[in-house]
């Protein structure tokens, strides 16, 4: 058993740098990695203590021919020992709770180093089984691919047109759910240009495994250039085309548009838009439409 564990530790240490979560490319993922490494340290200590005690007990007190007559003492416990092994886990839990809570709070804000910069706002909408990314400030929209500038916080506003999904880009930071009729926020950031894998991490049915996208983190200039090109050359997104997208299943191609769907629907406010479109109903004639401002489009 000890051999097994030491093998595990060796594999672990040597393999760490290649695992996506432990190979962060931005400050959010880095904070999470630090927390994970801290907890691994504590946990290995606990595992070690238990394994050593365990091995000692079963080797030392095993039944052998020479102790066949030995009558074990029938002691019922020891207050001192029990207080010790209640106190130790209490201390460990406190030692882990403090940095955990700090990080939970920190992750609600844009990363400290870049907090003076305005974040890029990107709406990420999950539609079975596609990703739609909307840049409201630039008035552009992409499907199944994402461009972001390096070294600037990205504020994702997450929602879904139907089933619950979770936007996850492991090397940039942890995930958050996309839910229809709701909007959740997630700050992520890339420190260097590169392409990273992003995907939906929450099961959404048949096309779930392929609901992924490539994240292109670019230098400021390249990103600006991409935005400008998109604005100029990409087609406009019409509501007709958008409704078609709502209906298309297992669609994994990349698309780019020079306008956004926010003009006629915000899924965070109109939860049943996609469902209505698929049923052939007109979603704008919805008596339960909570989306007051866009009703007439």
């Amino acid at each position, binding site marked *: 058993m000890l051999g097994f564990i030491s093998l595990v530790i060796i594999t672990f240490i040597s393999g760490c740098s290649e695992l996506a979560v432990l190979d962060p490319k931005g400050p959010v993922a880095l904070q999470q990695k630090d927390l994970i490494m801290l907890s691994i340290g504590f946990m290995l200590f*606990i595992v070690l203590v238990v394994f050593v005690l*365990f091995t000692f007990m079963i080797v030392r007190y095993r039944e052998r021919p020479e102790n066949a007559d030995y009558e*074990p003492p029938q002691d019922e416990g020891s207050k001192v020992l029990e207080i010790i092994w209640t106190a130790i886990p209490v201390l460990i839990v406190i030692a882990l709770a403090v940095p955990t*809570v700090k990080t939970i709070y920190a*992750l609600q804000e844009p990363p400290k180093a870049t907090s003076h910069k305005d974040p890029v706002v990107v709406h990420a909408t999950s539609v079975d089984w596609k990703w739609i990314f909307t840049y409201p400030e630039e008035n552009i929209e992409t499907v199944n691919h994402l461009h972001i500038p390096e070294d600037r916080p990205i504020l994702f506003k997450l929602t879904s047109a139907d089933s619950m999904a979770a936007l996850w880009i492991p090397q940039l930071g*942890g995930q958050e759910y996309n839910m229809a009729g709701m909007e959740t926020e997630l700050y992520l950031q890339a420190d260097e240009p590169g392409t990273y894998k992003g995907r939906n991490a929450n099961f959404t049915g048949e096309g*779930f495994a392929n609901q992924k996208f490539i994240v292109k983190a670019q230098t400021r200039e390249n990103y600006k250039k991409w935005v400008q090109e998109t604005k100029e050359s990409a087609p406009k997104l019409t509501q007709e085309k958008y409704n078609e997208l709502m209906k298309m299943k297992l669609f994994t191609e990349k698309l780019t548009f020079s306008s956004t769907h926010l003009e006629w629907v915000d899924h965070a406010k109109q939860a049943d838009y996609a469902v209505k479109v698929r049923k052939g109903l007109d979603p704008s004639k919805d008596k339960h439409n909570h989306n007051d401002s866009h009703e007439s489009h």
Partner: protein
Amino acid sequence: MKWDEFFVTGDPFIYAADVSIVLTTIAIVFVLTYYKKWKWLWSEWLTTVDHKKIGIMYIIAAVLMLFRGGVDALLMRAQITAPGSEILKSQHYNEIFTTHGTIMIIFMAMPFLIGLINFVVPLQIGARDVAYPYLNAVSFWTFFFGAMLFNISFVIGGSPSAGWTSYVPLAGDELNPEPGQNYYLLGLQISGIGTLLTGINFLVTILKMRAPGMNLMRMPMFTWSTLITMLLIIFAFPVLTVALALMTFDRLFGSHFFTLADGGIPMLWANLFWIWGHPEVYIVILPAFGIFSEIISTFARKTLFGYKAMVWSMVSIAGLSFIVWVHHFFTMGANAVVNSFFSITTMAIAIPTGVKIFNWLFTLYKGRIKITSAMLWSLAFIPNFTIGGVTGVMLAMAAADYQYHNTYFLVAHFHYVLISGTVFACFAGLYFWYPKMFGHKLHERIGKWSFWLFMIGFNVCFFPMYFLGLNGMPRRIFTYEWADGWFDLNMVATTGAIGMAIGFVLLVYNIYWSFRYAERETMGDPWDGRTLEWSTPTPVPFYNFAKIPEVTGLDAYSRMKRDPVKDIKKDYKPIHMPSYSGKPIIMSIALFISGFGLVFEWWWMAIAGLIGVLAMLVLRSFDYDDGYYVSVEEIERIENSIE
């Protein structure tokens, strides 16, 4: 409806299953008819209210479900081993992981433990049966037919495919109009009734039917764990009942509790599900703690170390289990205060659990440890469960959980705790109490082979999954690409799964081999046991104890063996026993029919079934059979034949 919508078609695995179901049914009918066993089956087993027989039937059903869930697991591993493989289609894979999860938790782990509880607990507390024997039969049969209803889905109508958690809107009528999800709702609902009744039954049994002298702090640890588990069931299961009913209304009657349209709140389902679901995790782990306590103490030949601390740990784990459910969705966008609160309460569970681990370790201290198969499973629990436990603490740290959530890291964690906790406990308990149940031990050497294959296979299967998770592999995907770099570790995991499968097959072979060849037990106490169940003869007479024992302290039977009371005069008194009844099984069949009707929205069938249920309830309420007395002569005859 057309036939090909009713029967699932187009998949060779399903056709093979169809054939094997038909063949098995024919074989069973043939054997029962050929050996003229129908009457025996009906009057000895199907109508029984004896807790021992009900316990054995629970265990048989659970082992069958373990096989079914295990085949599901192997199919999943086969599909996921290599990138881009096409053994299963996406939809089929989704159905398989949904049924795997549901079956293993609801129809395998819980019934296996409830089976052991049924058999052992009344004996441990010196009772002649449970408080409500008739209700106990109702519990078993509703569980059984609930499980059957859920199980036939894969050949008739199609399995549920929205995951065992069935998150809406995915599981709702809009995105999932097939009947599969109805099977989930009704199968769980019907068997849930049985579980809730079990909770009430055993709570009353333990509180009211203990032998004289057995106060709460003298109860065996397994009985204690059962008592706390039953409290959890009573508080948690009504939530599931209501949640399932609401979703059933949404799907069948067009209500809007969880829908996207008309103001439904999908997240309400996630909350209700986990308010039940998290205590459920402890419903399947606390009895396991009880089983390990009994076995470790017996084979270390020592009293359990820190009895009171063990009890209080379980009580606090049970209490905490109700205030941690949000850790199943830290990524729901709740604010920092909420996530911090649930993060800390979740981590706090590690404290009482840690106390228990050290108490078990110190039960071994200065003992004389005999390594039997039952003890091997119990010892293996300690290091393996520790790995599962510490990774649980890592998951509890919300900020880090954003990276683990929905990944194989999570898959690895809960399999580590559920298998090394619950499954090891089921096997340990089976080896331990087997001679009491069937009058012979299981073969030790086959048992040890089975143990090592399963235990090593388990580690090889699930340990790599921690790394897969950290490398970005989400759970529930049916395929991936070579570029993802997950092939090597998946390959290793599948090898481990095969090891576990062989271990399981050896266990089943052991049951067969021991049934044929193992030496029959003549004494009632093959392991030098410490608690009252070992004071009964083997096989246990149907009334358990001719004379109810007097309890003077912890480990009641060890005390009796150390200071035997000379009990020469055997002045037996007549024993009151309950009559057998066919109503529980008939009522459950009617519930099954009703449930099947609801799955396909065939209202005539649903209503007919419900009328059947109602008829059985009415008949029972006019049933004036109060049981019967076993005469003193009969008791003497039975007791003398044992000696």
